[in-house]
Protein backbone atom coordinates (compact mmCIF):
# COMPACT_ATOMS: atom_id res chain seq x y z
CA UNK A 1 0.00 0.00 0.00
CA UNK A 2 2.61 2.52 1.08
CA UNK A 3 4.92 1.67 -1.84
CA UNK A 4 2.04 2.25 -4.23
CA UNK A 5 1.40 5.64 -2.69
CA UNK A 6 5.04 6.63 -2.95
CA UNK A 7 5.12 5.51 -6.57
CA UNK A 8 2.00 7.51 -7.34
CA UNK A 9 3.41 10.59 -5.68
CA UNK A 10 6.79 10.44 -7.39
CA UNK A 11 5.77 9.34 -10.86
CA UNK A 12 2.35 10.95 -10.97
CA UNK A 13 1.09 8.41 -13.47
CA UNK A 14 -2.59 8.68 -12.71
CA UNK A 15 -4.85 11.66 -12.78
CA UNK A 16 -4.96 12.25 -9.05
CA UNK A 17 -4.66 15.79 -7.92
CA UNK A 18 -2.22 16.31 -5.05
CA UNK A 19 -2.34 19.45 -2.97
CA UNK A 20 -0.55 20.51 0.18
CA UNK A 21 -2.68 21.54 3.11
CA UNK A 22 -0.32 23.55 5.26
CA UNK A 23 2.28 24.17 6.63
CA UNK A 24 0.59 27.52 7.20
CA UNK A 25 -3.01 26.43 7.01
CA UNK A 26 -5.06 28.14 9.73
CA UNK A 27 -7.05 25.07 10.67
CA UNK A 28 -4.05 22.90 11.51
CA UNK A 29 -3.21 25.26 14.43
CA UNK A 30 0.48 24.95 13.84
CA UNK A 31 2.97 24.02 11.18
CA UNK A 32 1.70 20.70 9.89
CA UNK A 33 1.70 19.78 6.22
CA UNK A 34 -0.86 17.32 4.96
CA UNK A 35 -0.22 16.04 1.47
CA UNK A 36 -3.74 15.35 0.28
CA UNK A 37 -4.50 13.28 -2.80
CA UNK A 38 -7.85 14.21 -4.29
CA UNK A 39 -10.13 12.61 -6.81
CA UNK A 40 -12.43 15.45 -7.66
CA UNK A 41 -13.39 16.72 -4.25
CA UNK A 42 -12.98 13.41 -2.47
CA UNK A 43 -9.90 12.60 -0.43
CA UNK A 44 -8.21 9.42 -1.63
CA UNK A 45 -5.44 9.40 0.92
CA UNK A 46 -3.31 11.83 2.81
CA UNK A 47 0.26 11.78 4.08
CA UNK A 48 1.10 13.93 7.11
CA UNK A 49 4.54 15.55 6.98
CA UNK A 50 5.80 16.52 10.40
CA UNK A 51 8.94 18.00 11.87
CA UNK A 52 8.61 21.67 10.97
CA UNK A 53 9.07 22.73 14.58
CA UNK A 54 11.17 19.88 15.84
CA UNK A 55 13.26 21.29 18.68
CA UNK A 56 14.85 18.10 19.93
CA UNK A 57 13.35 18.25 23.39
CA UNK A 58 14.19 14.62 24.11
CA UNK A 59 17.82 15.22 23.23
CA UNK A 60 17.92 18.49 25.18
CA UNK A 61 16.73 16.59 28.24
CA UNK A 62 19.92 14.54 28.18
CA UNK A 63 21.98 17.67 28.84
CA UNK A 64 19.75 19.12 31.56
CA UNK A 65 19.17 18.26 35.18
CA UNK A 66 15.81 16.91 36.28
CA UNK A 67 14.68 20.28 37.60
CA UNK A 68 15.54 21.92 34.30
CA UNK A 69 13.70 19.31 32.24
CA UNK A 70 10.37 20.47 33.70
CA UNK A 71 10.35 23.74 31.79
CA UNK A 72 11.03 21.93 28.50
CA UNK A 73 7.97 19.72 28.87
CA UNK A 74 5.78 22.83 29.05
CA UNK A 75 6.68 23.46 25.46
CA UNK A 76 5.46 20.13 24.11
CA UNK A 77 1.71 20.24 24.56
CA UNK A 78 1.44 23.81 25.70
CA UNK A 79 -2.29 23.54 26.39
CA UNK A 80 -1.77 20.82 28.98
CA UNK A 81 1.48 22.19 30.36
CA UNK A 82 0.66 21.24 33.91
CA UNK A 83 0.02 17.58 33.11
CA UNK A 84 3.28 17.35 31.18
CA UNK A 85 5.14 18.79 34.17
CA UNK A 86 3.47 16.36 36.50
CA UNK A 87 4.39 13.33 34.41
CA UNK A 88 8.11 14.10 34.67
CA UNK A 89 7.81 14.96 38.35
CA UNK A 90 6.10 11.66 39.09
CA UNK A 91 8.81 9.69 37.30
CA UNK A 92 11.50 11.38 39.40
CA UNK A 93 9.52 10.95 42.63
CA UNK A 94 8.96 7.25 41.86
CA UNK A 95 12.62 6.68 41.16
CA UNK A 96 13.76 8.57 44.26
CA UNK A 97 11.01 6.85 46.32
CA UNK A 98 9.80 10.17 47.65
CA UNK A 99 6.28 10.38 49.03
CA UNK A 100 4.83 13.79 48.15
CA UNK A 101 2.55 15.43 50.73
CA UNK A 102 -1.21 15.04 50.38
CA UNK A 103 -1.59 18.77 49.84
CA UNK A 104 0.58 18.59 46.74
CA UNK A 105 -1.47 15.73 45.33
CA UNK A 106 -4.71 17.62 45.79
CA UNK A 107 -3.40 20.86 44.32
CA UNK A 108 -1.88 19.04 41.37
CA UNK A 109 -5.18 17.31 40.64
CA UNK A 110 -7.08 20.59 40.84
CA UNK A 111 -4.61 22.22 38.49
CA UNK A 112 -4.86 19.26 36.11
CA UNK A 113 -8.59 19.69 35.86
CA UNK A 114 -8.38 23.46 35.48
CA UNK A 115 -5.86 22.97 32.73
CA UNK A 116 -8.06 20.37 31.05
CA UNK A 117 -10.99 22.77 31.20
CA UNK A 118 -8.95 25.60 29.70
CA UNK A 119 -7.72 23.28 26.96
CA UNK A 120 -11.21 22.00 26.12
CA UNK A 121 -12.56 25.55 26.07
CA UNK A 122 -9.90 26.58 23.60
CA UNK A 123 -10.62 23.48 21.53
CA UNK A 124 -14.32 24.31 21.54
CA UNK A 125 -13.81 27.86 20.33
CA UNK A 126 -11.26 26.89 17.68
CA UNK A 127 -13.37 23.96 16.49
CA UNK A 128 -16.40 26.18 16.08
CA UNK A 129 -14.32 28.71 14.21
CA UNK A 130 -12.95 26.05 11.85
CA UNK A 131 -16.50 25.08 10.97
CA UNK A 132 -17.55 28.66 10.38
CA UNK A 133 -19.08 29.67 13.72
CA UNK A 134 -16.93 32.66 14.62
CA UNK A 135 -18.99 33.56 17.70
CA UNK A 136 -17.77 30.50 19.59
CA UNK A 137 -14.22 31.78 19.39
CA UNK A 138 -14.97 34.84 21.47
CA UNK A 139 -17.26 33.10 23.92
CA UNK A 140 -14.81 30.30 24.60
CA UNK A 141 -11.88 32.64 25.12
CA UNK A 142 -13.95 34.83 27.44
CA UNK A 143 -14.49 31.93 29.83
CA UNK A 144 -10.95 30.62 29.47
CA UNK A 145 -9.70 34.01 30.62
CA UNK A 146 -11.00 33.33 34.13
CA UNK A 147 -8.90 30.16 34.44
CA UNK A 148 -5.85 31.93 33.07
CA UNK A 149 -6.31 34.67 35.66
CA UNK A 150 -6.28 32.03 38.41
CA UNK A 151 -3.06 30.64 36.93
CA UNK A 152 -1.53 34.09 36.67
CA UNK A 153 -2.27 34.88 40.28
CA UNK A 154 -0.78 31.66 41.62
CA UNK A 155 2.10 30.91 39.24
CA UNK A 156 2.80 34.23 37.57
CA UNK A 157 2.32 32.92 34.06
CA UNK A 158 -0.72 32.07 32.03
CA UNK A 159 0.26 29.35 29.60
CA UNK A 160 3.69 27.89 30.32
CA UNK A 161 3.67 27.70 34.08
CA UNK A 162 6.58 25.56 35.26
CA UNK A 163 4.87 25.27 38.61
CA UNK A 164 5.77 21.67 39.42
CA UNK A 165 9.15 20.65 40.63
CA UNK A 166 10.29 17.14 41.54
CA UNK A 167 8.95 16.60 45.05
CA UNK A 168 6.18 19.16 45.05
CA UNK A 169 5.36 22.64 43.87
CA UNK A 170 7.42 25.78 43.33
CA UNK A 171 5.36 27.84 45.78
CA UNK A 172 2.28 27.41 47.82
CA UNK A 173 -0.83 28.51 45.95
CA UNK A 174 -2.11 32.04 46.38
CA UNK A 175 -4.46 32.62 49.38
CA UNK A 176 -7.24 33.58 46.95
CA UNK A 177 -6.89 30.31 45.05
CA UNK A 178 -9.89 28.44 46.50
CA UNK A 179 -12.26 31.40 46.38
CA UNK A 180 -11.47 32.14 42.79
CA UNK A 181 -12.01 28.53 41.75
CA UNK A 182 -15.39 28.48 43.48
CA UNK A 183 -16.25 31.72 41.72
CA UNK A 184 -15.25 30.16 38.43
CA UNK A 185 -17.26 26.98 39.00
CA UNK A 186 -20.48 28.85 39.69
CA UNK A 187 -19.80 31.12 36.70
CA UNK A 188 -19.00 28.36 34.27
CA UNK A 189 -21.93 26.16 35.34
CA UNK A 190 -24.18 28.91 34.02
CA UNK A 191 -22.20 29.41 30.82
CA UNK A 192 -21.94 25.77 29.78
CA UNK A 193 -25.60 25.47 28.62
CA UNK A 194 -24.92 28.46 26.35
CA UNK A 195 -22.24 26.41 24.60
CA UNK A 196 -24.85 23.79 23.78
CA UNK A 197 -27.35 26.35 22.55
CA UNK A 198 -24.77 28.12 20.43
CA UNK A 199 -23.06 25.21 18.74
CA UNK A 200 -24.23 21.73 19.75
CA UNK A 201 -27.83 22.29 18.77
CA UNK A 202 -26.99 24.23 15.63
CA UNK A 203 -28.31 22.41 12.61
CA UNK A 204 -25.51 23.51 10.27
CA UNK A 205 -22.90 22.25 12.73
CA UNK A 206 -24.69 18.93 13.20
CA UNK A 207 -24.92 18.38 9.45
CA UNK A 208 -21.18 18.85 9.16
CA UNK A 209 -20.26 16.76 12.21
CA UNK A 210 -22.60 13.77 12.22
CA UNK A 211 -21.47 10.72 10.31
CA UNK A 212 -18.19 12.33 9.25
CA UNK A 213 -14.77 10.82 9.95
CA UNK A 214 -15.92 7.52 11.36
CA UNK A 215 -13.31 5.74 13.49
CA UNK A 216 -14.11 2.26 14.72
CA UNK A 217 -13.01 0.99 18.10
CA UNK A 218 -10.58 -1.40 16.39
CA UNK A 219 -8.97 1.46 14.47
CA UNK A 220 -8.65 3.52 17.63
CA UNK A 221 -6.94 0.69 19.48
CA UNK A 222 -4.82 -0.23 16.46
CA UNK A 223 -3.45 3.27 16.03
CA UNK A 224 -3.24 3.97 19.77
CA UNK A 225 -5.68 6.86 19.62
CA UNK A 226 -6.23 7.89 23.24
CA UNK A 227 -7.93 10.66 25.10
CA UNK A 228 -11.30 12.10 24.10
CA UNK A 229 -10.68 11.11 20.46
CA UNK A 230 -10.32 7.45 21.40
CA UNK A 231 -13.16 7.54 23.91
CA UNK A 232 -15.46 8.86 21.18
CA UNK A 233 -15.06 5.46 19.56
CA UNK A 234 -15.79 3.54 22.74
CA UNK A 235 -12.15 2.79 23.59
CA UNK A 236 -11.87 2.94 27.36
CA UNK A 237 -8.46 4.54 27.84
CA UNK A 238 -8.72 7.04 30.70
CA UNK A 239 -5.49 6.77 32.73
CA UNK A 240 -7.22 8.59 35.57
CA UNK A 241 -9.45 5.51 35.93
CA UNK A 242 -7.08 2.73 34.86
CA UNK A 243 -4.09 3.77 36.98
CA UNK A 244 -5.19 6.57 39.32
CA UNK A 245 -2.51 9.08 40.33
CA UNK A 246 -2.63 12.23 42.41
CA UNK A 247 -5.99 12.54 44.15
CA UNK A 248 -8.02 10.86 41.40
CA UNK A 249 -8.67 7.81 43.57
CA UNK A 250 -10.40 10.03 46.13
CA UNK A 251 -12.99 11.59 43.81
CA UNK A 252 -16.07 10.27 42.07
CA UNK A 253 -16.15 10.80 38.33
CA UNK A 254 -17.27 8.95 35.24
CA UNK A 255 -15.20 8.01 32.26
CA UNK A 256 -17.06 9.46 29.29
CA UNK A 257 -17.55 6.92 26.52
CA UNK A 258 -19.39 7.46 23.25
CA UNK A 259 -19.90 4.78 20.66
CA UNK A 260 -20.63 6.96 17.63
CA UNK A 261 -17.02 7.21 16.50
CA UNK A 262 -17.68 10.22 14.29
CA UNK A 263 -16.77 13.89 14.70
CA UNK A 264 -19.92 14.59 16.69
CA UNK A 265 -19.18 11.76 19.16
CA UNK A 266 -15.72 13.17 19.83
CA UNK A 267 -17.29 16.58 20.28
CA UNK A 268 -19.76 15.23 22.81
CA UNK A 269 -17.04 13.45 24.79
CA UNK A 270 -15.19 16.74 25.28
CA UNK A 271 -18.33 18.62 26.22
CA UNK A 272 -19.19 15.96 28.81
CA UNK A 273 -15.61 15.97 30.10
CA UNK A 274 -15.93 19.67 30.87
CA UNK A 275 -18.88 18.85 33.15
CA UNK A 276 -16.92 16.01 34.78
CA UNK A 277 -13.96 18.32 35.37
CA UNK A 278 -16.25 20.82 37.06
CA UNK A 279 -17.61 18.12 39.36
CA UNK A 280 -14.07 16.92 40.21
CA UNK A 281 -13.13 20.51 41.05
CA UNK A 282 -16.18 20.87 43.26
CA UNK A 283 -15.25 17.76 45.22
CA UNK A 284 -11.64 18.80 45.74
CA UNK A 285 -11.61 22.54 46.19
CA UNK A 286 -12.89 22.59 49.76
CA UNK A 287 -10.88 19.59 50.91
CA UNK A 288 -7.30 20.67 50.28
CA UNK A 289 -5.42 19.38 53.33
CA UNK A 290 -2.97 21.58 55.20
CA UNK A 291 0.70 20.77 55.00
CA UNK A 292 3.90 21.42 53.12
CA UNK A 293 3.88 22.32 49.48
CA UNK A 294 6.98 20.31 48.76
CA UNK A 295 8.67 17.19 50.02
CA UNK A 296 12.26 17.39 51.13
CA UNK A 297 14.51 16.83 48.12
CA UNK A 298 18.24 17.06 47.65
CA UNK A 299 19.39 20.09 45.66
CA UNK A 300 21.06 17.84 43.09
CA UNK A 301 18.82 14.96 42.05
CA UNK A 302 20.56 11.83 40.87
CA UNK A 303 18.26 8.97 39.90
CA UNK A 304 19.50 5.48 40.71
CA UNK A 305 20.58 3.61 37.59
CA UNK A 306 17.64 1.90 35.93
CA UNK A 307 14.55 2.44 33.82
CA UNK A 308 11.47 4.31 34.95
CA UNK A 309 8.10 4.73 33.32
CA UNK A 310 5.02 6.71 34.19
CA UNK A 311 1.92 7.80 32.32
CA UNK A 312 -0.69 10.48 32.85
CA UNK A 313 -3.84 11.59 31.12
CA UNK A 314 -3.41 14.96 29.44
CA UNK A 315 -6.22 16.88 27.79
CA UNK A 316 -5.51 15.01 24.56
CA UNK A 317 -4.72 11.50 25.68
CA UNK A 318 -2.08 9.39 27.24
CA UNK A 319 1.33 10.91 27.86
CA UNK A 320 3.97 8.41 28.90
CA UNK A 321 7.46 9.28 30.09
CA UNK A 322 10.25 6.75 29.92
CA UNK A 323 13.57 7.52 31.54
CA UNK A 324 16.78 5.54 31.43
CA UNK A 325 19.19 6.69 34.09
CA UNK A 326 22.83 5.77 34.52
CA UNK A 327 23.06 7.34 37.95
CA UNK A 328 24.08 10.82 36.84
CA UNK A 329 22.29 14.09 37.44
CA UNK A 330 20.82 14.12 33.93
CA UNK A 331 19.05 11.21 32.22
CA UNK A 332 20.84 8.89 29.81
CA UNK A 333 17.75 8.78 27.58
CA UNK A 334 14.34 10.34 27.89
CA UNK A 335 11.41 9.33 25.72
CA UNK A 336 7.97 10.90 25.62
CA UNK A 337 5.05 9.00 24.19
CA UNK A 338 2.91 11.96 23.25
CA UNK A 339 -0.81 11.57 22.53
CA UNK A 340 -0.98 13.82 19.47
CA UNK A 341 1.61 11.84 17.55
CA UNK A 342 -0.62 8.75 17.58
CA UNK A 343 -3.79 10.76 17.10
CA UNK A 344 -2.44 12.42 13.94
CA UNK A 345 -1.59 9.28 12.02
CA UNK A 346 -5.09 7.86 12.21
CA UNK A 347 -6.17 10.69 9.90
CA UNK A 348 -5.31 8.81 6.73
CA UNK A 349 -7.55 5.97 7.85
CA UNK A 350 -10.58 8.02 8.83
CA UNK A 351 -10.38 10.78 6.22
CA UNK A 352 -10.19 8.52 3.16
CA UNK A 353 -13.40 8.88 1.22
CA UNK A 354 -14.43 12.14 2.88
CA UNK A 355 -14.82 15.45 1.11
CA UNK A 356 -11.97 17.91 1.48
CA UNK A 357 -14.13 20.27 3.56
CA UNK A 358 -14.70 17.44 6.04
CA UNK A 359 -10.95 17.18 6.53
CA UNK A 360 -11.10 20.41 8.54
CA UNK A 361 -13.80 18.97 10.77
CA UNK A 362 -11.81 15.76 11.27
CA UNK A 363 -8.53 17.46 12.13
CA UNK A 364 -10.42 19.80 14.45
CA UNK A 365 -12.14 16.95 16.23
CA UNK A 366 -8.82 15.20 16.87
CA UNK A 367 -7.66 18.38 18.65
CA UNK A 368 -4.07 18.29 17.46
CA UNK A 369 -1.33 20.37 19.02
CA UNK A 370 1.57 20.36 16.59
CA UNK A 371 4.50 21.12 18.97
CA UNK A 372 3.51 17.96 20.81
CA UNK A 373 3.85 15.92 17.61
CA UNK A 374 7.23 17.34 16.64
CA UNK A 375 8.59 17.99 20.15
Amino acid at each position, binding site marked *: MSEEIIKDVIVGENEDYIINMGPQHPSTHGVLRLEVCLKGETVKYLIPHIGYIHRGIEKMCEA*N*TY*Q*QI*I*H*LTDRMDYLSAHMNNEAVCMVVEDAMQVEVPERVKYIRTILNELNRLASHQLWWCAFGMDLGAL*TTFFYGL*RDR*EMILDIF*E*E*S*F*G*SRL*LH*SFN*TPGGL*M*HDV*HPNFQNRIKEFISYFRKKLP*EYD*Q*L*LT*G*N*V*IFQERAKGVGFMSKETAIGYGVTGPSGRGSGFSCDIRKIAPYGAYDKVQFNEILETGGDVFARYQVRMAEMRESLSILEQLVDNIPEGDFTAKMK*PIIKLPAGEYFRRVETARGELAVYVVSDGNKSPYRMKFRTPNFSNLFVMNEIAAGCKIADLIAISGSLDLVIPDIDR
Partner: protein
Amino acid sequence: MFRGISSLWAGMRITGKYFFSPRAIVTQQYPENRATLKMEERFKGEVTMPHDENNQHACTGCGICEMNCPNGSIEILTDRIPNAEGKMERVIDKHIYHLSMCTFCELCIKTCPSNALAWGQKFEHAVFDRSKLTKVLNQPGSKIRKEAK
Protein backbone atom coordinates in the same frame (compact mmCIF):
# COMPACT_ATOMS: atom_id res chain seq x y z
CA MET B 1 -36.41 23.15 7.99
CA PHE B 2 -38.32 24.27 11.08
CA ARG B 3 -35.71 22.53 13.20
CA GLY B 4 -33.08 24.55 11.41
CA ILE B 5 -34.80 27.85 12.04
CA SER B 6 -35.41 27.05 15.71
CA SER B 7 -31.76 26.04 16.23
CA LEU B 8 -30.56 29.22 14.57
CA TRP B 9 -32.96 31.23 16.72
CA ALA B 10 -31.55 29.60 19.89
CA GLY B 11 -28.04 30.69 18.93
CA MET B 12 -29.12 34.17 17.90
CA ARG B 13 -30.86 34.64 21.24
CA ILE B 14 -27.59 34.12 23.11
CA THR B 15 -25.63 36.50 20.93
CA GLY B 16 -28.48 39.02 21.07
CA LYS B 17 -28.51 38.83 24.86
CA TYR B 18 -24.85 39.86 25.01
CA PHE B 19 -25.29 42.44 22.27
CA PHE B 20 -27.88 44.33 24.32
CA SER B 21 -26.24 43.98 27.75
CA PRO B 22 -22.97 45.93 27.79
CA ARG B 23 -22.36 44.93 31.41
CA ALA B 24 -21.35 41.49 30.21
CA ILE B 25 -18.37 42.86 28.29
CA VAL B 26 -15.20 41.60 29.92
CA THR B 27 -12.60 42.92 27.50
CA GLN B 28 -9.79 45.04 28.89
CA GLN B 29 -9.11 48.23 26.94
CA TYR B 30 -5.39 47.57 27.09
CA PRO B 31 -3.37 50.46 25.74
CA GLU B 32 -5.81 52.97 27.23
CA ASN B 33 -5.77 51.47 30.73
CA ARG B 34 -2.00 51.40 31.12
CA ALA B 35 -2.09 53.93 33.95
CA THR B 36 -4.35 51.75 36.10
CA LEU B 37 -3.20 48.33 34.91
CA LYS B 38 -1.65 46.41 37.77
CA MET B 39 -0.09 43.02 37.25
CA GLU B 40 -0.29 40.22 39.79
CA GLU B 41 2.31 40.17 42.52
CA ARG B 42 3.82 36.91 41.27
CA PHE B 43 3.70 37.87 37.60
CA LYS B 44 6.79 36.73 35.73
CA GLY B 45 7.77 39.78 33.76
CA GLU B 46 11.55 39.79 34.01
CA VAL B 47 14.23 38.86 36.52
CA THR B 48 15.29 41.80 38.65
CA MET B 49 17.70 42.37 41.50
CA PRO B 50 16.04 44.48 44.20
CA HIS B 51 18.22 47.26 45.65
CA ASP B 52 17.47 49.03 48.91
CA GLU B 53 17.62 52.79 49.55
CA ASN B 54 21.42 52.67 50.17
CA ASN B 55 21.95 51.17 46.69
CA GLN B 56 22.79 47.80 48.19
CA HIS B 57 21.81 44.35 46.96
CA ALA B 58 22.11 40.85 48.41
CA CYS B 59 24.00 39.09 45.60
CA THR B 60 27.24 37.44 46.73
CA GLY B 61 28.24 36.35 43.25
CA CYS B 62 28.19 32.64 44.13
CA GLY B 63 27.08 31.64 40.61
CA ILE B 64 24.32 29.22 41.61
CA CYS B 65 21.79 31.01 39.42
CA GLU B 66 24.17 30.87 36.48
CA MET B 67 24.66 27.14 37.05
CA ASN B 68 20.94 26.40 37.36
CA CYS B 69 19.80 28.42 34.37
CA PRO B 70 18.84 25.90 31.67
CA ASN B 71 19.61 28.14 28.69
CA GLY B 72 22.51 30.32 29.75
CA SER B 73 20.64 33.58 30.17
CA ILE B 74 22.69 34.59 33.21
CA GLU B 75 26.37 35.47 33.19
CA ILE B 76 28.20 36.67 36.27
CA LEU B 77 31.45 38.60 36.06
CA THR B 78 33.17 38.72 39.43
CA ASP B 79 35.84 40.98 40.75
CA ARG B 80 38.13 40.85 43.77
CA ILE B 81 38.43 43.88 46.00
CA PRO B 82 40.03 44.22 49.42
CA ASN B 83 37.56 44.46 52.32
CA ALA B 84 37.91 46.38 55.62
CA GLU B 85 40.35 43.84 57.07
CA GLY B 86 42.55 43.99 54.00
CA LYS B 87 41.58 40.52 52.69
CA MET B 88 40.63 40.06 49.05
CA GLU B 89 36.91 39.37 48.74
CA ARG B 90 34.87 38.20 45.78
CA VAL B 91 32.10 40.57 44.70
CA ILE B 92 30.04 40.82 41.54
CA ASP B 93 31.23 43.16 38.89
CA LYS B 94 28.32 42.61 36.52
CA HIS B 95 25.28 40.37 36.80
CA ILE B 96 24.32 40.07 33.14
CA TYR B 97 20.83 38.87 32.28
CA HIS B 98 19.86 38.03 28.69
CA LEU B 99 16.10 38.56 28.63
CA SER B 100 15.95 37.37 25.04
CA MET B 101 17.05 33.88 26.06
CA CYS B 102 15.05 33.60 29.28
CA THR B 103 12.25 31.01 29.44
CA PHE B 104 10.86 32.19 32.80
CA CYS B 105 11.32 28.85 34.55
CA GLU B 106 12.03 30.54 37.90
CA LEU B 107 14.96 28.27 38.78
CA CYS B 108 17.40 31.15 39.40
CA ILE B 109 15.05 32.88 41.83
CA LYS B 110 14.11 29.62 43.52
CA THR B 111 17.68 28.43 44.06
CA CYS B 112 19.31 31.74 45.06
CA PRO B 113 20.64 31.16 48.60
CA SER B 114 20.59 34.86 49.52
CA ASN B 115 17.25 35.80 47.90
CA ALA B 116 18.95 38.40 45.77
CA LEU B 117 16.70 37.96 42.73
CA ALA B 118 12.98 38.62 42.31
CA TRP B 119 10.41 38.91 39.58
CA GLY B 120 9.67 42.29 38.08
CA GLN B 121 6.23 43.09 36.78
CA LYS B 122 7.28 44.88 33.60
CA PHE B 123 5.93 43.06 30.55
CA GLU B 124 6.30 45.44 27.59
CA HIS B 125 9.60 44.13 26.32
CA ALA B 126 9.39 45.05 22.64
CA VAL B 127 12.51 46.93 21.50
CA PHE B 128 14.05 47.71 18.13
CA ASP B 129 17.48 46.29 18.89
CA ARG B 130 18.16 42.89 20.39
CA SER B 131 21.14 44.12 22.37
CA LYS B 132 18.79 46.21 24.50
CA LEU B 133 17.42 42.98 25.96
CA THR B 134 20.77 42.22 27.59
CA LYS B 135 20.62 43.87 30.97
CA VAL B 136 23.01 44.40 33.84
CA LEU B 137 21.00 43.72 36.95
CA ASN B 138 23.23 45.32 39.58
CA GLN B 139 23.03 49.09 39.51
CA PRO B 140 26.24 51.07 38.99
CA GLY B 141 28.07 51.76 42.24
CA SER B 142 25.96 49.28 44.21
CA LYS B 143 27.46 47.25 47.03
CA ILE B 144 26.60 44.01 48.73
CA ARG B 145 24.42 44.39 51.80
CA LYS B 146 26.19 43.32 54.99
CA GLU B 147 23.59 41.82 57.25
CA ALA B 148 24.11 41.43 60.99
CA LYS B 149 23.99 37.77 61.78
